[in-house]
C-alpha cells in the first residue's frame, strides 16, 4: 500500500532514476519483441537475417552475430526471458527466504530450532556450485522456468538469515507484545505487525534476488549449463563469448547484454536506497504532510486485510 504511494511520487532522485530504468526495461520486455518485428522486421531467432558480424547500421541497429542474427532483436527478446527468470527466481527465492526466515525467527521451540539449523546449514553450502550441479542435472530441459526454479531454490539462504535475525529482534519488541494483549492472532501479528517492519528488507532482498537470478542465469549459460535455445541476456553472452565476439571487436554483441544486466542491477540498487524510507513514516513524513484521505484509505485497507 505504501509502496504504491511511494511509487507514485518518488521523493528521492536516485529512486526516481532507478524506477525509470526498471519501468523502461519492463516495458521493453512486454512490447519490445512486437515492436522490433513490426518496426524493424527483425526476429531474435532468425539466422542469416544479415551478414555475419555486421556492425550497427540502419538495418541492424545493434549489428549482427556471427550467425547473422539481429542483436537488437535478441537483446529485446532476451529482456523478456531474463526478466522472467529474474522475477520468478527472485520471487521464489524471496518467498522462501521470508517464509523460512520469519517462521524460524518467530516460532520458538523445537520447530524454530530445527528450521534455524536448516537455514544455517544451507548457508554454509556454496550456492553457485550447488546451482551448477543441479542445473547440469536438468541439462537445459524445461526452459526458463526450470532455470528460474533452480536459481530460486538455491539462492534463498542469505536472505533467510537476514530476515531471521530481524524477526528475532522484532518478536519480543513491546509493540508486538502489546498487539498480543490487544487480542491479535498469531498470523495477524506476523503479517501486520512484524512483516511490515521487514518490508524494506523484503523489498531489497527481492530486488537483489531478481538481479542475482538474472546474473546466475547468465553464469549458468556461460559455463554451458543453461538452455541455449532460449534467447536471454545470458545466452547472448554465452554465444558472444564462445564465438569470440570480443576478439573480433564485435562490441555491439558482447557489451549490450552485460550492460543490461548491470543496468537492471543498478536500478534495483537505486530503488533500494529509497526502500529504507518506505518502511518508516518518520522518514517519509519529513516535510510532506500525508493527506488525510490517503491515511483513511490506508487504514481501510489494513482493516480489510
Amino acid at each position: 500500500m505504501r509502496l504504491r504511494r511511494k511509487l507514485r511520487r518518488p521523493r528521492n532522485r536516485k529512486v526516481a532514476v532507478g524506477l525509470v530504468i526498471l519501468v523502461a526495461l519492463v516495458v521493453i520486455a512486454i512490447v519490445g519483441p512486437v515492436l522490433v518485428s513490426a518496426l524493424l522486421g527483425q526476429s531474435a531467432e532468425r539466422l542469416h537475417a544479415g551478414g555475419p558480424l555486421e556492425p550497427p547500421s540502419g538495418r541492424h541497429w545493434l549489428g549482427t552475430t556471427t550467425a547473422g542474427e539481429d542483436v537488437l532483436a535478441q537483446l529485446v527478446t532476451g529482456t523478456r526471458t531474463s526478466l522472467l527468470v529474474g522475477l520468478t527466481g527472485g520471487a521464489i527465492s524471496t518467498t522462501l527466504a521470508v517464509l523460512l526466515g520469519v517462521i524460524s525467527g518467530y516460532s520458538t521451540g523445537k520447530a524454530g530450532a530445527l528450521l534455524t539449523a536448516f537455514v544455517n546449514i544451507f548457508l554454509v553450502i556454496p550456492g553457485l556450485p550447488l546451482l551448477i550441479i543441479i542445473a547440469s542435472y536438468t541439462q537445459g530441459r524445461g526452459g526458463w522456468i526450470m532455470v528460474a526454479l533452480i536459481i530460486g531454490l538455491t539462492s534463498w539462504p542469505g536472505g533467510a538469515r537476514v530476515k531471521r535475525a530481524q524477526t528475532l529482534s522484532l518478536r519480543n519488541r513491546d509493540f508486538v507484545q502489546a498487539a498480543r494483549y490487544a487480542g491479535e492472532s498469531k498470523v495477524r501479528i506476523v503479517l501486520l505487525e512484524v512483516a511490515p517492519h521487514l518490508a524494506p528488507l523484503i523489498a531489497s532482498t527481492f530486488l537483489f534476488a531478481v538481479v542475482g537470478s538474472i546474473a546466475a542465469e547468465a553464469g549458468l549459460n556461460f559455463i554451458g549449463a543453461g538452455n541455449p535455445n532460449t534467447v536471454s541476456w545470458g545466452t547472448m553472452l554465452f554465444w558472444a563469448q564462445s564465438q569470440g565476439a570480443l576478439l573480433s571487436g564485435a562490441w555491439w554483441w558482447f557489451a549490450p547484454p552485460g550492460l543490461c544486466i548491470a543496468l537492471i542491477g543498478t536500478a534495483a540498487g537505486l530503488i533500494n536506497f529509497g526502500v529504507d524510507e518506505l518502511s518508516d513514516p518518520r522518514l517519509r513524513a519529513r516535510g510532506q504532510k500525508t493527506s488525510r484521505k490517503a491515511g483513511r484509505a490506508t487504514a481501510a485497507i489494513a482493516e480489510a486485510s
Partner: protein
Amino acid sequence: SGGGANGGGGGDAGGGAPLTVAAYSQPTLQPNFNPFSPNALRGTMGLIYEQLYDFNTAGKFEFMPSLATEIAWADAGKTLDVTLDTRAKWSDGSPLTSDDVVFTFEYMKEHELLALPLTKASKTDKGVRLEFSEPAYAIVQDIGRTAIVPAKLWQGKNPDTELNTVPVGSGPYKLGRVTGQQAGFEARDDYWKQKVPVGQINYITTSSTSLLAQQLVRHEVDLAYAGIPDMQQFVAKDPANNHLWPVHASMKPLLLNLKRKPFQDLHVRKGFALALNREQIANAYNPGVYAPVSATGLYQEDWTDWIPEADRAPLAQNQQEALAEFAKAGYHKNGDQLVGPDGRQLTMGVLTVSTFADGMAYTQELVSQLTQIGVKATVEGVPPTAYTTREGKGDFDAIYGDAFTYGANPYNFYSSMLAPDSKHNFVGWDDPATNKALAALAKAAPEQQKEATLPLEKIMVEQVPVVPLLVKGTPYMYSTMNWTGWPSERNPYTTPDPGAISGVYAAKLVLSLKPAL
C-alpha cells in the same frame, strides 16, 4: 643435457625457444605418465614412450616407422612380423630389445588392456612376431600404436593405479617441469635416432577457446588444434607467421535414434538427409575448416577412388524432395509445421556438447534449417559426460557431435558406426547385410579392401543408417615465429597432433621442426 630453466637449451640436444603447445582445453592437469592410462598426459606417447609404427592419415597412408622399421604379413593376415630398430635405447641408457616388446604385449594381455585378437607374441631374430586368432589386416594401425615400456621397470606394476611420475621411455624427451597447468618436456641429448631440434616443449592448459585465440594472436602458443572462433582472423593478424591447416580425418554425421519414432522410418531419414544445407552448416563456425561429405560418409577428396562416381558429390539441399520423402512417411506440411499422421508436429532435440563452441554453432544452424522445413527442433546442449552418458543409453532423438575417424582403411570407420557390438553405434543399427559386409572387409587383404568397402557405402547411401554431413577439419593452427618445418597441406608428412592419438605423429612432428631464423 636438455633445455634450461628459461627455455632454450644447452648442449647438442637442440635449443631455441621452448615450443608451446595448447594441448588441454581444461584449466588444470595432474601428473600422470602411465602410457596405459586413459588420462596419461599428452607427450607420454611419442615424446616419452614410443610406439611401433603408424600410417600417415594426413597424407597417403604411407608407413611411418618408429620403433619398428618395417612390418610383414604372413599366414593370411594372422601373423605379423615386426622388425625392430636395433639402435633404440631407453633413457636410462639400456637398450630396448624385443624382450621389452614381447613383455609389453604380454603385460597388456595379462591386464586386459589389449583389444587385439593376439594369441602370441614371440621373439624373432629381427624383432617380434605377433600371432592373431583371425586376419588382422583391418586393425594394422591399432597394432602399431602399442607403446612399448621397459620390462624391467613395469614388471609387477598395476596399470590401473600407476601414475608413473618418473617415466623411463625410449622417446626423444624426458620429463621437464610439470605444474598444475603445464607438462614440460626436455630433449634427450642421447636420443638414439637423431639430434633433437626442439630443446623444450611445454604442453599447456587453456580453459576456453576464446582464451586460446588470444594466446595464439599474442604468440604465446606455437601450436593449437582446437576450434577457436574466427580462425581466419588469427591468420589475418600475422599472415607471415600464423598458419591454419584443417586436417580431414573424421566425419561428422547427424545421428538419428533408430529406436525412436519416426526415425526408424527410412523415408524420414532420407527426408532429413535432403533437408539439410551442408555447405551452410559447414560455414556456421569457421568457413573453410569443415566441408560437406559424400553420402557414403567417406570424404570424397581423400577417398576419391573408393567411392563410386555417382555417390561422390555430397547431397545438396532439396526441400521439395525432402518433403516428398517425409510425405511417404506420413508427414505433411501444415502451415509452417511438418505434421505427422497423429496430427502432431515432428519434434526433436539435437543433442550436442554445450562446452564445445563449434559444435553448438553447427547444431544451431542445423536446427534452424530443420525448423525451416517445419520440424520443431531444439538444441540440447549438455556437458560432455552427460552427453556421452545419454548417447550411450540411447537417450536422445538426434545427435550432432560425434566424429568417426577414417584411419588407414575404412574398416574402423564403418564398424564403429554400424557394427551392432560397437560402442559407437549409438543409433542402434543392426542389419545382417551390414554385418556380413563388415566381416568381409575385416578379412580383406589390403588390395581387396576397396572392393570390400563398396557394399557398406551402398548401405550408407540407400539405408541412411546415419546422415553424413561434414568432414571434420581438425584445425591445426601454428606459428612460424619460433619454429618452422611444420607439416602442411603441401607437405603433409604427419598430422601435427601433439600426441592424443598417435605418438608416432607427435614424434615425427617435433623431430622435423627447425628453429626460425
